[in-house]
C-alpha cells in the first residue's frame, strides 16, 4: 500500500511538472510580440492603398520605419476597429485560458488535499 507521504510526493511532483511545462506556454500567451509580427509589409500594400501611394507623395519610406512610434502606439492607433475588436476578443480568450488553468489547478490541489485529509481522518478512526 502506498503511504500518504509517498502519495503526497507523487502529487506534488505531478503538479510541479505540469506547472513547469505549462508556464512557458502561458507566459508566451501574454507576450504581445505576435501583434507586431502580424503586420508585415504586404499587409500595408494593397488593401486600402496601392504601392504607388507609398512612393514619395506625402511621406518617404523612412517615415514608416517605426522610430517615431512606440510599440504601444502600434497596438492602439494603427489597428482598425475590426482588428482591435478581434484582438481584444483574442486577448480576453487568453485571459480566460490562463485563469481557467489556474482555477483548474487550484481545484485539483484543493481536491487532492481534501481527499488526503478525509483518508487521514478515516484511517485514524
Amino acid at each position, binding site marked *: 500500500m502506498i503511504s500518504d507521504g509517498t502519495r503526497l510526493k507523487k502529487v506534488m511532483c505531478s503538479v510541479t511538472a505540469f506547472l513547469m511545462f505549462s508556464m512557458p506556454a502561458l507566459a508566451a500567451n*501574454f507576450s504581445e510580440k505576435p501583434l507586431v509580427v502580424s503586420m508585415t509589409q504586404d499587409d500595408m500594400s494593397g488593401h486600402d492603398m496601392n504601392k504607388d501611394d507609398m512612393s514619395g507623395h506625402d511621406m518617404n519610406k523612412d517615415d514608416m520605419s517605426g522610430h517615431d512610434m512606440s510599440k504601444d502606439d502600434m497596438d492602439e492607433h494603427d489597428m482598425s476597429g475590426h482588428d482591435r475588436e478581434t484582438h481584444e476578443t483574442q486577448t480576453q480568450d487568453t485571459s480566460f485560458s490562463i485563469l481557467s488553468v489556474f482555477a483548474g489547478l487550484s481545484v485539483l490541489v*484543493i481536491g487532492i488535499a481534501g481527499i488526503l485529509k478525509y483518508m487521514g481522518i478515516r484511517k485514524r478512526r
Partner: protein
Amino acid sequence: MKWPMVHTDTMLKSIVKSKWYPGIFQFPVLAVFIFITYELFFGPMNAHKNFGTALTWVLWWPVLPLLFLCMGRFWCAICPFATISDWVQKIVGNNRPVPRFLKKYGIWFIDVFFIMITWGDHVFGIVESPRGSGFMMVLIALGAITAGAFFERRTWCRYVCFLGGLAGNYSRAGMVELRGTPEKCRSCTVAACYKGGRKASGCPMFEFPKTMDTNARCNLCGNCLKNCPYDSPHISFRLPTKELWFIQRPRFEESFLAVVIMGIVFVQNITMVAIWQEAQTWLEHLLGTQEYAITFTVIFLIAMAIPVALLYFGSWGAAKKDGESVHMNFSRFGYSLIPLDFSAHMAHNLFHLLAEGKSIFNTGMAALGISVSSSSAAVVSMGTIHILQYVLLLLGMLGSMYTAYKISKSHYTAADILRITLPIGILIVVLTMANAYLFTLPMVHRM
C-alpha cells in the same frame, strides 16, 4: 534606547487583541486584490491604461518597503495570498510538518525565487503587460494555496514567498518589534503563543515569542497576544536598524539576500535609464546575438554579481584586520547593507510613486468610464524627486555606516573598530555613489 513605548496595554493592544483583527483588514485587501486581478486580466491591454497595473506597480509595490520599515511584516498578516491560503487550510488543510529541506534551505529558495521573478519580469515583460502581472498574481496565489492545503501554518509565507523575504529583510531594520516579557515567559509552561489556544491558533510563522530575537519573521497577526494567559507579548517601537546591531548568529543566506536586493535595485535602475537601449545594442554586437533574453541575462548577472563581489572584497579586507573568516565577515556585515538597500529601493520606487503617481487617478477614472486628459503622470517635478532620492540615499548610507560601526563595536575591541569597519565603509560609499550616479540619468516611465 527605546522610543516612547506603545505597549500592549495601550490602544494598540486592544486593536491587536480584538477578535476582528486582522480580519477587518484582510477582507477589504482581498476584495481589492480580486478587483486588481480582474482588471489585469480583462482591463485594457496597454499597461499605461490599466488601473490594475497602476495600483500594483505604481502604488502597492513602491509603498511596500516603507510599510515594512514602519509596520514590520503587518502586510503579511493581511496579505490576500495568505488569506486565501488560510481559508484553504481551514477547509482541507492536511497540516503536515514543513519538509526538512525547506526548513534548511528555505531562505535560499526565497533568494532564488526573488532573482527569478526579477529576471522573468524583464524577459517576459511582466510589469509592462497587465496579463503578465495577472499571471504572476495567480501563480503566487496557487503556490500559497498549495502550501496551505498540504502543510501546517503559513509554510509558504515563512519559507517560500519572495515578498516574505523582502519583508523580513526590511522588517529586521524596521521600527516595530514584538517580544515576550522574560519575567512572565520564564514561569510559563503553556506556550499557548506557539501551540495555540481557545482564542486563536498558534503562531502562523513558527515563532516562539519567548525566545524571539528578530522581527524578520513575525507578521504581527496578534495570535500570541490573544492566546497568552500571562499577557506577556508586547509590541513596541524601536530605533530603525537597531536590531541589526546585535545579531548574535548571523546567517550567510540572510546577508546574501540583503546583497541580492541591492543587485536587484541596480538591475531595475539600469534597465530604466535612457542609455539602456544603447548599452543593449553595444552588448548585442559584442555577443553577436539580438536575443533579448541573452543580453539581459548577461547584464543581470553582472549587476547581481557586483554588490556580492564588493561585499566579498570588503569582507576580505575586514578579515585581514579581525582574523575572522571572509565567510563570517560576509555574514556579519551583510546586514549592514540593509539600510542602504532600503533607501536605494525606496529612492527607485519614489520615481514610480511621484513621477507616475497621477496615472493611478487617471486609469482609475478611465476604469469608471470617465476620461481624464492629463499631459503628465507626475505628481511633483523631477527636480524634487531627485532631491528626495539623494536625501534618502544619504540617510541610507549613514544608516549602513552606523550599523557597520555598531556591529564592529559589539564584536571587537575599541582599538580595532575603525580598521575593521573601514573596508565595509568604503564598500557602502561605492554602492551609494553607484546608485546616486544611476539616479542622475534620465529614466523611462513605466506608466
